[in-house]
């Protein structure tokens, strides 16, 4: 017992008085949760997420197409949904910025990332979407093109794209930038929606890296 420098109550047979020790128990619960989430303190939320966006994202991820990674591993795993910031978008392209700090930036292995976005098409139209992955190279101030994907969009609605290892590396470094460019470039031909319940997001499956063990002689 760190406070009393005595034996732990569990070992000298005392019965715990629940009401008088309630605050202590709640403090222990908080500490346990923060320790196991590898957090030094509870998160302070600076950018609120709407309930509609949250609900939509969770519903999309529960769909039948979801792949399950079946490796048996004891390391703690996380599934992270990151909603996009669309600050630098224009009429001809949509730029999506995702931020992963703390736990995901270093010390973790990003195993799979998926992009989910909503496209509104004119009736009887199809669209080829060019999805570019932009990264910040070391010692460089400008974003450069790391890879790109072409996705055929035939219907209005939610679309999903499984992203490759260069995206996983960007997530591990804390920042991911994607550009969605419709190939047709006709004004208002297709629209990538970003409203409350149509906000684009990335879903990442992350695993804590194994600790490097040093054997002491």
């Amino acid at each position, binding site marked *: 017992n760190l406070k009393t420098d005595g034996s*732990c109550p569990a070992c000298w*047979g005392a*019965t715990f008085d629940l009401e008088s020790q309630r605050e202590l128990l709640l403090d222990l619960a908080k500490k346990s949760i923060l320790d196991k989430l590898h957090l030094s303190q509870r*998160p302070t939320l600076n950018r609120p997420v709407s309930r509609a966006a949250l609900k939509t994202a969770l519903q999309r991820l529960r769909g039948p197409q979801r792949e399950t990674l079946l490796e048996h591993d004891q390391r703690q795993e996380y*599934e992270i949904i990151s909603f996009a910031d669309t600050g630098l978008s224009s009429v001809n392209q949509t730029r999506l910025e995702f931020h992963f700090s703390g736990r995901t930036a270093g010390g973790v292995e990003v195993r799979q990332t998926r992009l989910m976005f909503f496209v509104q098409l004119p009736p009887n139209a199809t669209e080829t979407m060019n999805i570019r992955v932009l990264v910040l190279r070391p010692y460089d101030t400008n974003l450069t093109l790391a890879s790109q994907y072409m996705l055929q969009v035939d219907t209005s609605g939610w679309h999903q794209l499984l992203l490759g290892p260069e995206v996983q590396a960007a997530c591990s470094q804390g920042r991911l930038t994607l550009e969605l460019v419709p190939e047709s470039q006709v004004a208002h031909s297709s629209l990538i929606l970003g409203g409350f319940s149509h906000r684009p997001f990335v879903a990442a499956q992350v695993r804590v890296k194994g600790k490097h063990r040093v054997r002491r002689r």
Partner: protein
Amino acid sequence: GIDCQGASRMCCRQEFFVDFREIGWHDWIIQPEGYAMNFCTGQCPLHVAGMPGISASFHTAVLNLLKANTATGTTGGGSCCVPTSRRPLSLLYYDRDSNIVKTDIPDMVVEACGCS
């Protein structure tokens, strides 16, 4: 295992629910609204040390009597009432970037207690 009830002072599991709203964490923890943390409390006489639970059987009673008769006393340490079974807690929460994180935290809910 045994759940604490009545006036028994023997090693048992005490139920204890942590309400996230009560501790002001409901804004960043989306689900669940709380969880049953529980904890172990009570006495562990030497003759039940090492028993995963206090089971009532003739065989167990005989073993306990043998231990009690050959026990050298409880000085210099004793048996502790500790969790013998725990299960994880699934949590859905916001991180500091307002990303939504889902994870299973191991060993958060005490399911049973016994004497070490």
